[in-house]
């Protein structure tokens, strides 16, 4: 059986005055049905662009996206409408992703009306079911987004994504604008929905503790490229790529007796515009050597299912 989602050599470039901005560069992976893939990386690493390109909100520059074995990279018209019923997205900011002039039930039922999956007479009932499912009080159906707090708004966004019974949902930082106590409510909701309905998620975030909690596999991105990919526990127990190591070491621990010793990274992300061949992490890497700039980094399966793109991975971890 093919994986639900397969991405092959996907690239997305943007033309900017200074040249070509490589937002996503040659990314490949698969997601099995009912699983969650976490995508982590700093702002500007291309993780949101990857999600948006995969569900066809943007056109891919190169590469292929397969949904259930079918190539959806360039489908259009009615075919694309069919795809839209299977893939949905929950946006990052619950404040700007809801139309302020639509009542909650109109927001949730819009995809229902557009998809034609439900008759007009069924809309109200289906909307109530969805609101129940995500835990919004049905009495709020006539409210406007400004009357709800962030957690409830994000639940509306989730209900809207679930409306057409999709198989695959891209969650683009769905909890990063929420407080921890509310964040936990939303994460639990997403996991419960997966258990009940078998939805597949791609969870885009910069919060590593969240991603470890929710994902089966994790993919670490740096400047548009995948630098490390592995089952989620393994990524934390045996971290191999120097960037992932630095990222993990920089998380402030809540254990007051454990002093943070972040691996210092020089400077900040370099520019994704017209990147040079060779390792993109090179300018900041503590292990950088001459060889790293010459050859492009290739994702190599170091141990089973654990992929790393680093020339010196064996030397560093040996």
């Amino acid at each position, binding site marked *: 059986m093919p994986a639900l989602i397969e991405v092959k050599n996907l690239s997305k470039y943007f033309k900017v005055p200074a040249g070509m901005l490589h937002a996503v560069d040659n990314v490949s992976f698969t997601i099995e049905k009912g699983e969650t893939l976490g995508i982590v990386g*700093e*702002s500007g690493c291309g993780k949101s662009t990857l999600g948006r390109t995969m569900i066809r909100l943007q056109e891919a520059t190169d590469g292929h996206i397969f949904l259930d074995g079918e190539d959806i990279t360039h489908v259009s018209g009615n075919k694309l409408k069919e795809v839209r019923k299977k893939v949905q997205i929950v946006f990052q900011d619950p404040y700007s992703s809801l139309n302020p002039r639509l009542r909650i039930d109109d927001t949730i039922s819009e995809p229902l009306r557009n998809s034609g999956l439900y008759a007009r007479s069924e809309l109200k009932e289906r909307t109530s079911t969805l609101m129940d499912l995500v835990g919004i009080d049905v009495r709020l159906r006539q409210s406007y987004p400004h009357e709800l*707090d*962030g*957690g*409830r708004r994000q639940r509306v966004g989730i209900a809207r994504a679930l409306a057409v019974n999709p198989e695959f949902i891209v969650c683009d930082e769905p909890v990063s604008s929420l*407080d*921890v*106590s*509310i*964040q*936990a*409510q939303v*994460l*639990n909701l997403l*996991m419960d929905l997966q258990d009940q309905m078998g939805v597949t998620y791609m969870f885009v975030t*910069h919060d*590593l*503790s*969240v991603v*470890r*909690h929710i994902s089966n596999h994790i993919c670490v991105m740096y400047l548009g490229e995948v630098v490390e990919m592995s089952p989620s526990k393994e990524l*934390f127990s045996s971290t191999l790529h120097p960037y992932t190591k*630095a*990222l993990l*070491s*920089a*998380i*402030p*621990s*809540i*254990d*007051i007796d454990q*002093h*943070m010793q*972040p691996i*210092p*990274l020089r400077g*900040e*992300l370099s520019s994704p515009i017209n990147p040079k061949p060779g390792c993109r992490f090179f300018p900041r890497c503590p292990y950088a050597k001459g060889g790293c700039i010459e050859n492009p980094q290739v994702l190599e399966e170091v141990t089973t299912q654990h992929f790393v793109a680093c020339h010196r991975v064996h030397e560093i971890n040996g």
Partner: protein
Amino acid sequence: MLNDKDAFLLVSDLTVIYTSRKKVVRAVNGVSFEMKKGETLGLVGETGAGKTTIAKSILRVLPDPPAKVLGGKIMLEGKDLMKVPEKEMLKIRGEKIAMIFQDPMTALNPLMTIGDQIIEGLKLHNNCSEAEAAQKAKELLEMVGIHAERFNEYPFEFSGGMKQRVVIAMALACEPDLLLADEPTTALDVTIQAQILDLINKLKVKYGISMILITHNLGVVAQTCDHVAVIYAGKIIEYGSKRDIFVNCAHPYTRGLFASLPSFSKDASRLKPIAGSMPDPTNLPLGCAFNPRCLSGIEDCNDSETPLIEISQGHFVRCCSVQQRDKFYASADRSQKSE
């Protein structure tokens, strides 16, 4: 909690409201705390708990209207900041107290070079010439890790982390005694956050600055603060040393906060969130504001104002059930001894 007359900063019974035509938002409801020189106090709480309002009242930069300080005292080295005339306050802002604002993208003037923005404060407070101020500003930039050549660049030419460094350089320009850092790293990535926290910690030691760090990131608090005040609906509900809060926290809300964090070490499949959300500050419940979400509520919670009680040396909690439990243990102790 308030006993030391020689405290560096003493805030007592601070009450702030925001008024609109119809509603009154009770943002800060009788907050009291004190700080010693060189100490770092963390103010922790959810969005809308009143953290930023507390900081802005200390600096007296709340917009009035809609904000109104109803009462309270703010003493900085024995001087009541509420009574200081505005002209003197101008001297205090920047020179004695400085603030790092939350969002580096909006805290800088997009039409001024970053050099000019740093110089502005220096010239105002230090009475020095343009050239001297420029020299000092360049030193400050180097200190926060920005090359002095970038002195004449505009904010849009910098990344988020760099802008935050510029804001820090501005705040430190006149070597303030008290630094109010309002979510200084929330908008930044973890690797940059680590660099900024490291920088703030080093500068704190170098200049002996006292700091109030406002954040909702408990990890950041654990790595930088000496004392922690947990704020809920405009009140301090728990206060103590870092160890009191992170190891022996007692208030159900604080415990709930820790329980709802996804953990790196434990493999719990479900998180334990705090049910519900913060009460509407225009319509706070009677008694304990956390009661509607609390699992250990008892009858007393609804009744009246819950006092802040010291449950161990320097560790204060505002919770009826904790206090009742402690009373129970105390009386049990006594009866054991008498037997």
